[in-house]
């Protein structure tokens, strides 16, 4: 007996809707077993993990706070990946954006309230873009593989931030601890609702809508898709590959940079050595979970955010270690990815060998 896949003539609509349901059902089963093995009531544990994060206003708001940067970065990455460009350095672009935008409160704290914030956001986007421009340039100019350069630049950005907040940008009244001055009120993004939800969430939604329109309704979107699926055809069609590279990296970098400055000027409120719990890398998963579709990215970002919040909830309420939460998260991703196969393929058990 072995598994065999058969390509469907066209993606199954039923499965497009059903596959996440099947994935979650499978995860729930396996998760229940994992929780039971750890000596917990599986039903209660699953409730705490999946349902509780959306039962109170507070946790819904926190969910949005967590999902916003993931969606913002993931949406840009989805465009990159559609063009078959492997930008896996969003974490570095995120950091660069936070550094560039954070320069205003640190170096020009007296700039007026109305100028500061827009300038910070613009600089954040530019910073991310500049960081992403390096792999784009190296790829266009020398044909250097962008996976490696973008990844390496992550470390460089993190060390740059580290050096800044421990050296020149250190808060002079902060007992030489590694952080910048706390941003003033007018440097901080306005919040919405009761808690920590900030303007970054709105930017994320805008980005999703704009990119959805761009990718599905415009010539640019068509160019990107063709350039990714069939580069030779794109060349014959008069689409310039280097231009696509510049555009996609610039876009993804700008959105990652925006996410970076939104975190610095949002929930964190200053620059410090660690500003991202791996958002740039998690966003890669988000982009693929969302099937490289901006709307899908939005949903995938929320799913990932739930899995983080749920992981924390089971730690606090059930005393489960965060390793169990990580394993569970891995399993969830495996199932979601595996079930997506059902959309484009029919899965059959075939007897014997071929």
């Amino acid at each position, binding site marked *: 007996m072995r598994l065999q896949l058969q390509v469907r003539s066209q993606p199954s609509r039923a499965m497009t809707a059903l596959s996440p349901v099947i994935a979650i059902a499978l995860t729930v089963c396996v998760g229940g077993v994992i929780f039971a093995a750890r000596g917990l009531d599986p039903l209660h544990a699953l409730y705490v993990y999946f349902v509780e994060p959306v*039962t*109170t*206003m*507070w946790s819904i708001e*926190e969910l949005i*706070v*967590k999902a916003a940067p993931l969606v913002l970065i993931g949406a840009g990455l989805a465009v990159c990946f559609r063009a078959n460009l492997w930008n896996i350095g969003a974490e570095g672009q995120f950091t660069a954006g936070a550094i560039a935008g954070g320069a205003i409160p640190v170096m020009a704290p007296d700039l007026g309230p109305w100028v500061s914030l827009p300038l910070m956001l613009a600089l954040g986007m530019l910073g991310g873009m500049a960081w992403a421009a390096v792999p784009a340039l190296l790829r266009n100019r020398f044909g250097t593989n962008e996976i490696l350069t973008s990844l390496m630049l992550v470390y460089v950005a993190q*060390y740059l931030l*580290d050096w800044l907040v*421990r*050296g020149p940008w250190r808060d002079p009244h902060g*007992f*030489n*601890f*590694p952080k910048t001055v*706390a941003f003033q009120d007018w440097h901080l993004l306005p919040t919405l609702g*009761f808690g*920590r939800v900030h303007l970054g969430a709105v930017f994320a939604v805008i980005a999703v809508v704009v990119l959805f329109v761009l990718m599905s309704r415009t010539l640019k979107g068509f160019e990107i898709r063709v350039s990714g699926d069939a580069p030779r055809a794109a060349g014959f069609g008069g689409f310039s590959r280097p231009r696509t590279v510049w555009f996609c990296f610039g876009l993804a970098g700008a959105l990652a940079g925006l996410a970076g400055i939104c*975190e610095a000027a*949002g*929930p*964190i*409120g*200053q620059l*410090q*050595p*660690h*500003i*991202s*719990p791996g958002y740039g890398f998690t966003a890669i998963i988000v982009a693929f979970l969302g099937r490289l579709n901006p709307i899908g990215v939005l949903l995938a970002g929320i799913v990932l955010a739930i899995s983080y*919040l749920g992981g*924390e*909830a089971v*730690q*606090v*309420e059930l*005393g489960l*270690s*965060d390793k169990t939460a990580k394993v569970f998260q891995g399993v969830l991703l495996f199932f979601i990815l595996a079930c997506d196969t059902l959309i484009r393929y029919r899965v059959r058990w075939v007897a014997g060998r071929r």
Partner: protein
Amino acid sequence: MRTLFAALTGLALSLAVGVASGADKLKVGYIYIGPIGDHGWTYQHNEGRLAVEAAFGDKVEVVYVENVPEGPDAERAITRLARDGAGIIFTTSFGYMDPTNRVAKNFPDVKFEHNTGYKRQSDNVSTYNARFYEGRYVIGQIAARMSKSGVAGYIASFPIPEVVRGINSFMLGAQSVNPDFKLKVVWVSTWFDPGKEADAAKVLIGQGADIITQHTDSTAPLQIAAEQGAHAFGQASDMIKFAPDTQLTAIVNNWAPYYVARVQAVMDGTWQSHDVWDGMSAGMVTMAPYTNLPDDVAAVAKETEAKITSGDFHPFTGPIHNQAGEMVIGEGEVLDDGVLLGMNWYVKGIDDKLPQ
């Protein structure tokens, strides 16, 4: 829309209150920066947590969240504990300072204890830290007595005052025995990377150091020292079982008495905001048993430890000169806590240039 919002908030609040009033036990919360199994910083905080459980048994419920990054996630994790009905919350890393203070404003009835910070923006926040440098002076003395080459290697994490203070104290201790003692410092830019710490230890030993000390969390440097026939000191916890023939002693972060006392204070209703910086005298810093040492060296170390514990001696007693040779403090005087807390200069005799 507005009514729906109001209804939802009402529901949220009632749920939160329901949880809070449902328990008559005192809920104690901990936020950890690393995994409990790091055998360094977080491990020792967790030992303190276990001591609270042991001391109060059924009267407390202790919860923790580990591996909480010092970013936006910290504020959420702390809020979660507060909403969950915790009566007192210990946040055990410097980077939690601002999140702790922000959450404290929203939960005036919950007590917050922040480790290693200095901000107390509302009267339900305390800060606490330990004078680890007291232990560093003792091991500096031991190092100078035990070293044949007259060179020690120091594996440092990040150039923050805490670490710089430790290096200075170590050097002052060493100089009190051997004024020409040499110290090589390597900054590894991480608190925890066993491989990199091991590499640094090897490099330092290769450069002539025969005593290794560290301000990073893993046990790797100790193992390297054992392998290469050098001596070393444990960091944060007693690491003797990793290097039984190599560890001379260890500076142990002993949070247990403090945690038990603070939880007791909340139960008694006597808890008040304070800023505590305790050392050997309060038992917050203790020395692991002196091992692999000749008796006379151990005796001197014990004597110094006793003098620091009783308050007869302060490691930062003048005269102290900085690297430029300027006198920072004169004969018989003691550096005040303000200077110690912001320390960003080396004492004379350290070859390294402090990264700025």
